[in-house]
């Protein structure tokens, strides 16, 4: 519960003004808290006289020294290792070196082939492999049970996984089963001198960054956004240990069964992992207008993105929607054409490296996040640009 030091409180009202939940008010010159309080801590941070505090009982905790090593869940689906796994091995390597512990990858599949070698080349010291027919298709229960059992047996201090459809699905299950904390969608990871993993993630739609720790529980678990960390360059000369593990059939039994896996080509592009995105919005006016975006993307070998307005108008399918209710992209280049830049859209693309915005309204908020802006009509600019790019790329 929020503690208010009535002697220190000067009734300035800063807490009341800043409380996102209308949970605090100044009455008779002193702050009062009501039932709306969620202990978010905003008021504690803004209080200038340190009259507010949220006391925390130090957790009964577990013996942290029993847990050592950095683990990366290697996401392997349809015969392919997800790129995010290589990125995780890169950052995982740094964390492991800082802690002086080994870096391990965990591979769950039916047939591992030469993937363990690939993982070692990418930085793993050890690869735990569970091969079982029950793991041939991803399913939450079998994968969750396998990772949970390995974690209980080997006690890593950190488990990282990609914040992909798979990672975001079964990793929360593992964390709950292990009764430990999990931070979703991290964009920064650092190993503190205190031995705790400092996990930073965007909150409130990316408008605030929050650094989160899990001080009294192990393992410390995080899912990490793809395309945030650089993939480690493979070093085929690295050597490492492949450890084959088995998990009991009973544990691998799942109450869900995959009947069919449908991989969509073309239309359902993997926007989240695209290096270049060309996106269009309301300014394209019609679906013929939006075809310009598709053509431009095609020429550049880019993925097509769209604002909600364009998707709602039916010019392009929902898989292309970027923003709060669509996909989050972190591309090298994001070209926003005729997109005004509503906050819901900006949330989904602002971590792109270079943002180019074209809009006829010079006050459009998209320019606030752009690196390069052009005030102009998309229909004047895009056709000649298309020609130019075709010329340059030799198509």
């Amino acid at each position, binding site marked *: 519960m929020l503690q208010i030091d009535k002697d220190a409180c000067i009734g300035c009202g800063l807490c009341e003004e800043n409380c996102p939940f209308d949970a605090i008010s100044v009455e008779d010159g002193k702050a009062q808290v009501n039932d709306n*309080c969620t202990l978010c801590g905003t008021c504690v941070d803004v209080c200038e006289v340190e009259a507010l505090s949220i006391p925390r009982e130090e957790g009964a905790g577990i013996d942290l020294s029993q847990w050592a090593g950095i683990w990366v869940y290697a996401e392997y689906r349809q015969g392919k290792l997800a790129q995010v796994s290589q990125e995780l091995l890169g950052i995982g390597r740094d964390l492991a070196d800082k802690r002086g512990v080994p870096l391990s990858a965990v591979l769950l599949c039916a047939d591992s082939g030469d993937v363990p070698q690939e993982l070692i080349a990418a930085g793993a010291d050890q690869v735990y492999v569970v091969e079982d027919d029950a793991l041939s298709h991803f399913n939450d229960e079998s994968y969750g049970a396998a990772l949970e059992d390995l974690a209980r047996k080997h006690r890593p201090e950190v488990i990282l996984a990609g914040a992909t459809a798979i990672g975001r699905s079964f990793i929360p299950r593992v964390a709950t089963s292990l*009764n430990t904390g999990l931070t979703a969608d991290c964009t920064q990871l650092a190993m503190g001198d205190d031995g705790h993993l400092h996990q930073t993630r965007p909150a409130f739609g990316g408008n*605030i960054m929050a650094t989160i720790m899990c001080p009294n529980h192990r393992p410390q678990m995080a899912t990490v956004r793809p395309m945030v960390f650089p993939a480690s360059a493979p070093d085929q000369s690295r050597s490492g240990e492949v450890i084959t593990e088995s998990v009991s059939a009973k544990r691998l039994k799942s109450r869900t069964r995959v009947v069919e896996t449908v991989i969509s080509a073309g239309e359902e592009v993997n926007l989240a992992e695209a290096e270049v995105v060309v996106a269009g919005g309301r300014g394209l006016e019609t679906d013929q207008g939006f075809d310009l975006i598709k053509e431009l993307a095609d020429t550049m070998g880019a993925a097509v993105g769209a604002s909600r307005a364009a998707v709602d108008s039916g010019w392009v399918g929902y898989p292309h929607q970027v923003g*709060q*209710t669509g996909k989050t992209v972190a591309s090298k280049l994001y070209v926003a054409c005729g997109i005004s830049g509503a906050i819901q859209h900006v949330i989904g693309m602002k971590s792109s490296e270079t943002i180019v915005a074209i809009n006829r309204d010079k006050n459009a908020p998209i320019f606030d996040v752009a690196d*390069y802006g*052009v005030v102009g009509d998309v229909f004047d600019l895009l056709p*000649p640009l298309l020609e130019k790019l075709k010329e340059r790329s030799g198509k």
Partner: protein
Amino acid sequence: MNIVVCIKQVPDAKDVRLDPETNTLSREGVKSVINPYDRHALEEGVRLKEEYGGSLTVLSMGPPQAAAILSEAISCGADEAYLVSDRAFAGADTLATTYTLAQAVAKVANPDLVLCGKQATDGDTAQVGPGLAVRLDMPFVTCVKKVHTVSDGVLTLERMMDDGYDVLEVDLPALLTVVKEINTPRFPSLRGLKRAKDYQVASLTAADIEADESQLGLGGSPTQVVKVFPPEKKGERTMIEGSVTEQVDKLAEIIFEAALGS
């Protein structure tokens, strides 16, 4: 089929504005609404109830004002609604939240199916659904985009993946988290609004759900927020001026450099 839908009250994204001076969220005049994904969970619940019969119970954990979204759920077709609310729940991370919700679900219903939105738009963690399923010892499927059929205690559905979708079968009881493609949420009905007006949302406290206090709220949360800070500001932007031809030339150069040239 007994269905439970878990919903959360979040600030309306339409109203959220970024203060350009401080680069922080301005919440002034921001309405609170049902988390958009939860609307789709609720709609799927109503739809499945209409098709297969049974009951539909809605739960929300939150401050007293969250009763408003439960009322809205009643007006859209839910049978019963419970607000899980207690000062002791404050500061809960996802682990403590799943514990609290699981206790509440067990208290009020014996569900065949639990539905949640894929994630809440304020936290975006997508952890509560899967965590709740573990607590309830149910199989779960996240990001469900279509429920085909329910028969003989088996649900057939489609789960969205990064590169397409999977068709799955899952044994009931089960928990699903849904994406917005799954349906179009209905508007309230006049009869529903009338019922909601008279309906008293029941409140459940920590004592009501027989919770172990050590697993609640801040104390039951393994994760701690240690620092909150604004994201790095973008560097200065460059506006490209000049004639259309000049602008196009410059654009092509930037694009080529940033993407194609590398």
